């Protein structure tokens, strides 16, 4: 069947901001879908509020709405664009929920919009727990015993029947948010209550526990002719009880006999039929009792997912691309398998390697959060690795995590006198955490037996045995040193041991191990990911490296003879380094491929567009370590003209490799590594600024507490302290006194060693922060965009909202900022991108506004995609041409700023995932993603950004204030504005007294420690619609924590800065005068 001709335009709904459970895998799938539909001749309309996505590049869809991904906005877009069809399966749970909402309110029917890729019925059957269970029963498949409950009492009645432990799963939440395993009645009540609050339909499923069973996933595709294939099976190494997003997983399933596997296959296909998934990809999850093989169905997702992205990268089979074609009428046999180019997509990929995915966590960002892994997802990213055996892929994945691991690095275990405290260690093993995988190896080192560890963890003995083998080889290495026989060394390398790991175990440095290894001729072989285990020749250059035994050649790379550039990606997503950097890497590939240069991508993050084999000319799915990267480049250098390596786009990860590249005589393109060092090294940078006569907050660097105190006394408290060479404000703090400073420095030296100095800066209270992205060819500088932060200095730039262009700064300040940026770029010798952060002080009667440089980073920044979308200048693309193709800025088609619109970027936070963690913002970055609001006024753009970030600003209702003394004066106009809008005002006793003195009507409410009824009660009773809370000092922060958490749970907006609150006033003012309208990016850019 050819493609459908009865539809002409298709609305694709994106997933919105990056949040836990919904990351850049939906940019990967959405971009593929947009490309395919466009190629098929459809008019593609896209909505996605996330500017850091490739899919929102204006070339991808015909009409791009960077507007909130919420039903109201999508309805407006439908009214305006009148699409024939809506594709809801590429944008995660967000898009499915929007489709449901627009179906229920009649929008789809009224405007004649057909859902393609999934029907409302199918979505309901899959998502509604009770209907899902019934459907499974109707086809003879078992599900864990369960029942739904809409109240706590109903839930308690269910658990009385099923017994504890029990699993609680809220309906219609992302990544299992709010779910968990209850072992005690108290735990049960607390999880159920939380789950009911989080569920948009106030419903939870209470389920028989299958904790400890084996967990499997099947990635299935079905077409409208009822052809169905399994693209990939995935086995969770962490058994049931840990969300699959938080589990270490392997592909394909390893511990099943064919008869068991075929039962899962048959069941999966039967499930797609019964649920009614007529076209597209779905993910089906099963649990199997390891004792008797009993199979139960856990859930299914009738859409592409994180697992389907993983399956696509693991096999080379592009699920989203194929699913998009199926949605418009093709059948599987009508679609070619891109990888072979000769066989159809109607087959099941087979692989001849093992793929391991390890999740990446950032618990260190959320002190107070419980690090236990449960059925609610907590990881922020993942690394995938490919090896010719499980050990190789697992060790490669561990060193891909960007945690400084070389493999199974040693970890502390509970001690009891001289020996290991075995009961305590077994207890720790029994509790899944982000570090448990390392503890498994450590337990073997401490002499625990495999059966003991299996009993504690329920992890399949086969996986444990492979880890035990790794530990045995480690012991052998430690005992006998580095082998001098090439076969013996290759055997060790074949199990995935990094040179760095071997160096650690044999007490040498990594360079010595690498040199010895090369002298023995032990080099990796690069193998193709070909979907068919070698049965057919593959035309897609998608590779992985392996040190497998018995290999005599370098493998199958066959490097090309063109000019070539290597682009280093950013590794796993984590807070501080996410999709923005992948966006830049993708642009580098597209830009340079576009001018005939061969682009070679290296990355290990399966969620990304950069690891789509369609993005670059050649793709290596490998860890971003010196060893792995240098080996690839050496292989690629064998032919053609190697221009160099781009390290400034992938965030901190590739920058860290610059030294290894230089040591291997590998040229770095663009800003030279020394200039990067000049900007990063505080002393050198201060010297430069002094020479250029550019102002910088008073500062110093130290390596011990004594120096720190001396510097702080010179500068005056409060001071900002941080380690050098960090991204995302890792471990950055504002300290107010000597004791906290000394404590900070001690902790930092303990954690990071004393090699890198600690930086101390004067803290500019209430200053406005400004971010500038610029592009330079070494002689000419283009200012990409000047962004004014909404939150004042002291809040990490990644967590702050910002506006482009600045909405409150005078022109002469902006001009000064631009001029300083230009001077800096030229003096640093920047070739490519640079980001500079400024602080602009407030004008006071005795001092005018002053501009300070906080830092300069000669690399792509987090804001590059935001600036590119807002201005229409694709900065990363342009920078790539400058760096890799020798273009001058003057040759580039830089568009002048077109007045008339303003864009606001707002951060999105994962606090809901981390019960117990505070929601206050500070210098340490905590956001997982961002949204953009774009409109004709700052107020509307800010309001849209809030809506996009999931914050519903009230235009009427009750406002609660609790502000610190220093801010009270600033809040008077805020209160006056809200009083004028007819809001009821509540405040803590102090705040209320102050506001009353200024003639405002405000009712006092008790703080929590003052006793009930207090502010938390008020929030819980639904009496508060918005909260403004500024605070300082450990005690006050602790006292007000429960208030902020309660606001979070209740889903009411809570603003914790003066500037943020002032922006809210403007936004609500705008919203009260006219409702928010939608407009496409293309209409703004002209």
């Amino acid at each position, binding site marked *: 069947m050819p493609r459908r001709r009865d539809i002409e335009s298709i609305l694709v709904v994106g997933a919105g901001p990056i949040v836990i459970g919904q990351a850049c895998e939906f940019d990967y799938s959405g971009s593929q879908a947009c490309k395919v539909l466009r190629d098929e001749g459809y008019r593609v309309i896209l909505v996605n509020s996330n500017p850091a996505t490739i899919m929102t590049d204006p070339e991808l869809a015909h009409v791009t709405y960077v507007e909130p991904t919420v039903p109201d906005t999508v309805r407006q877009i439908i009214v305006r664009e009148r699409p024939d069809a809506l594709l809801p399966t590429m944008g995660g749970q967000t898009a499915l929920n929007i489709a449901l909402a627009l179906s229920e309110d009649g929008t789809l029917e009224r405007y004649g919009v057909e859902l393609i890729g999934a029907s409302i019925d199918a979505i309901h059957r899959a998502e509604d727990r009770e209907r899902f269970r019934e459907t499974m029963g109707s086809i003879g498949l078992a599900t864990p015993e369960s029942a739904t409950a809409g109240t706590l009492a109903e839930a308690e009645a269910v658990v009385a029947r099923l017994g504890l432990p029990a699993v609680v799963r809220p309906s219609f939440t992302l990544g299992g948010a709010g779910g968990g395993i209850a072992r005690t009645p108290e735990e049960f009540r607390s999880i159920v209550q939380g789950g009911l609050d989080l569920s948009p339909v106030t419903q939870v499923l209470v389920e028989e526990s299958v904790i400890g069973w084996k967990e499997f996933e099947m990635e299935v595709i079905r077409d409208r002719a009822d*052809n169905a294939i399994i693209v990939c099976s995935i086995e969770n190494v962490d058994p049931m009880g840990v969300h699959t997003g938080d589990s270490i997983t392997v592909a394909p399933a390893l511990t099943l*006999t*064919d008869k068991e596997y075929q039962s899962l296959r048959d069941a999966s296909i039967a499930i797609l039929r019964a649920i009614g998934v007529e076209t597209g990809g779905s993910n089906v999850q099963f649990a199997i009792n390891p004792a008797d*093989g009993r199979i139960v169905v856990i859930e299914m997702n009738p859409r592409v997912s994180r697992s389907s992205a993983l399956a696509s990268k693991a096999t080379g089979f592009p699920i989203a691309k194929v699913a998009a074609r199926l949605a418009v009428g093709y059948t599987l046999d009508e679609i070619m398998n891109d990888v072979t180019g000769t066989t159809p997509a109607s087959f099941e990929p087979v692989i001849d390697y093992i793929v391991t995915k390890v999740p990446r966590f950032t618990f260190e960002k959320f002190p107070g959060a419980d690090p236990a892994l449960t059925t609610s997802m907590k990881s922020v990213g993942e690394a995938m690795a490919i090896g010719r055996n499980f050990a190789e892929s697992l060790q490669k994945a561990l060193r891909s995590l960007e945690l400084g691991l070389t493999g199974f690095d040693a970890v502390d275990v509970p001690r009891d006198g001289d020996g290991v405290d075995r009961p305590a260690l077994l207890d720790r093993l029994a509790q899944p955490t982000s570090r448990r995988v390392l503890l498994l190896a450590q337990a073997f080192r401490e002499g625990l037996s495999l059966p003991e560890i299996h009993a504690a963890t329920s992890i399949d003995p086969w996986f444990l045995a492979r880890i035990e083998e790794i530990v045995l080889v480690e012991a052998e290495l430690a005992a006998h040193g580095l082998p001098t026989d090439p076969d013996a060394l290759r055997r060790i390398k074949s199990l995935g041991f990094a040179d760095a790991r071997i160096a650690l175990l044999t007490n040498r440095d990594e360079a010595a191990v690498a040199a010895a290894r090369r002298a023995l001729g032990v080099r990796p072989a690069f193998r193709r990911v070909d979907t068919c*285990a070698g*049965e*057919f020749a593959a035309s897609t250059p998608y590779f992985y490296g392996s040190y*497998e035994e018995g*290999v005599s050649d370098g493998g199958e790379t066959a490097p090309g003879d063109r000019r070539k550039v290597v682009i280093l990606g950013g590794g796993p997503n984590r807070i501080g380094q996410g999709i923005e950097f992948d966006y830049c890497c993708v642009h580098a590939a597209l830009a340079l491929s576009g001018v005939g240069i061969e682009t070679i991508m290296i990355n290990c993050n399966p969620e990304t567009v950069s690891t789509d084999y369609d993005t670059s000319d050649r793709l290596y799915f490998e860890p971003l370590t010196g060893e792995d990267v240098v080996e690839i480049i050496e292989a690629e250098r064998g032919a053609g003209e190697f221009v160099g390596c781009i390290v400034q786009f992938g965030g901190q990860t590739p920058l860290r490799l610059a030294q290894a590249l230089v040591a291997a005589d590998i040229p770095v393109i663009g800003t030279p590594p020394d200039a990067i060092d000049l900007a990063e090294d505080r002393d050198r940078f201060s010297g430069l600024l002094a020479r250029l006569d550019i102002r910088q907050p008073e500062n110093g660097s130290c390596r011990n507490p004594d120096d720190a105190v001396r510097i702080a006394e010179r500068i005056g408290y409060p001071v900002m302290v941080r380690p050098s060479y960090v991204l995302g404000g890792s471990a950055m703090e504002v300290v107010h006194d000597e004791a906290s400073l000394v404590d900070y420095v001690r902790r930092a030296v303990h954690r990071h060693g004393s090699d890198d100095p600690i930086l101390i800066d004067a803290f500019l209270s209430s200053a406005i922060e400004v971010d500038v992205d610029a592009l330079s060819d070494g002689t000419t500088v283009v200012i990409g965009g000047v962004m004014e932060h909404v939150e004042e200095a002291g809040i990490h730039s990644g967590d702050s909202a910002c506006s482009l262009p600045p909405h409150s700064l005078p022109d002469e300040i902006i001009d000064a900022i631009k001029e300083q940026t230009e001077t800096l770029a030229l003096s640093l010798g920047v070739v490519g991108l640079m980001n500079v952060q400024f602080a602009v002080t407030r004008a006071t009667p005795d001092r005018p506004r002053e501009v300070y440089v906080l830092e300069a980073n000669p690399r792509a920044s987090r804001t590059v995609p935001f600036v590119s979308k807002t201005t229409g200048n694709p900065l990363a693309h342009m920078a790539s041409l400058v760096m890799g193709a020798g273009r001058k800025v003057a040759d580039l088609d830089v568009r002048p700023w077109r007045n008339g619109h303003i864009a606001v970027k707002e951060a999105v936070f994962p606090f809901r995932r981390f019960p117990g963690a505070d929601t206050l913002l500070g210098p340490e970055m905590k956001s997982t993603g961002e949204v953009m609001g774009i409109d004709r006024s700052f107020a509307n753009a800010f309001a849209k950004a809030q809506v996009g970030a999931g914050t519903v600003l009230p235009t009427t209702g009750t406002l609660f204030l609790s502000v610190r003394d220093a801010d009270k004066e600033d809040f008077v106009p805020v209160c006056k504005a809200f009083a004028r809008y007819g809001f009821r005002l509540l405040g803590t006793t102090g705040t209320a007294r102050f506001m009353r003195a200024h003639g405002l009507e405000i009712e006092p409410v008790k703080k929590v420690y003052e006793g009930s009824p207090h502010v938390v009660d008020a929030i819980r009773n639904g009496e508060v619609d918005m909260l403004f809370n500024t605070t300082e000092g450990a005690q006050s922060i602790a006292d007000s924590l429960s208030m902020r958490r309660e606001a979070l749970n209740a889903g009411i907006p809570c603003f914790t800065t003066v500037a943020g609150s002032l922006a809210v006033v403007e936004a609500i003012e705008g919203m009260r005068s006219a409702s928010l309208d939608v407009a496409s990016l293309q209409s703004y850019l002209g």
Partner: protein
Amino acid sequence: MTQPGSPPRVPGRAESGILVLADGTVFRGRGWGKTGRAVGEVCFNTSMSGYQEVMTDPSYAGQIITFTFPHIGIVGCNATDHEAVLPAARGAIFRADPTPPSNWRSEQPLDAWLRLAGIVGLSGIDTRALTLRIRAGGAPAGVIAHQPDGVFDVERLVGQAAAWPGLAGMDLASEVTCREPYTWTEGLWSGLGRTPVPAADAVPIVAVDYGVKHNILRLLVDRGLTPTVVPATEPAEAILARCPAGIFLSNGPGDPAATAEYAVPIIRRLIDSGMPLFGICLGHQLLAHALGARTEKMHQGHRGANQPVLDRATGKVEITSQNHGFVVCRDELPETVEETHTSLFDGSIEGIRLRGRPVSGVQYHPEASPGPRDSAYLFDRFRSQIVEGTA
């Protein structure tokens, strides 16, 4: 770091196994299973599960199987997953060393099973390079050998490999067929190990055994048919004297043209009897010969569990399990024969039928085991032809 209680299982034993190809190429690795040597055609199989079923499939007689999937042996071996009483494969090649098993169904580790099954195993070689070599040059003759002392007379082994005549022209069905007729009553593995008792009114059929896989017989039993399995050379008269309601021609190894010499006259008589007839793999190829078609050796064959086949009548695609190195030639297909199924990988013939008659065959393995069960409908169709007289 000491390891109390842990057996020393550091991978990497001495080189105790070898594969030598006819052109003198040598792969050295570690030997498993039976010690000694075996000569045969070196082919590869891409299935990611079901190694025990693969190795016990009689169609692998005369062959040394290279498993492209790197970890073989994880789930051990058991008594249920046999496809024949005695495995016919001569050798098996693995990327990684077989490990102690981990599965509730396992009864024996792979290494021990290989020893009992008389299969020479080899691990630790570059199976990907070997596979690509077969893809490029076709399946070569080779000798696989396992000696605990690791001492091999390579020159002699090369000579043996080079002297092996190859599968073309070789009748192997006669080596794996049963010696005496028997009746099969066991049904499918149901997940809990139960086997259904055949229905009392089970319909008798005859299955001609060229190397039949047990799962075919189990599927027939599940559909209320009771197969009597007879040797490949059983005369047509003897078969018809059993008064069967249908005839099944089984899968099997070797060159169909060689087996056809004695099988075709029998099959022609059976077709003439007018009763429903169904052939799988070699049975399908022999049926083609009987209908006047021809077979030829393929370059590398189809061996795996992911092969797409188009059902030309419905336009539907089924994912199939396959294992064949010979194929029915399209250019000499008689008018009376209709091509019913086609490979979507290379366009080769995957199924035929005699026009207007309930006589058909498929090249692939609808009985799966290992592999997808998409094609089980063919057994339903065969049953309807027998019981309801449908075409």
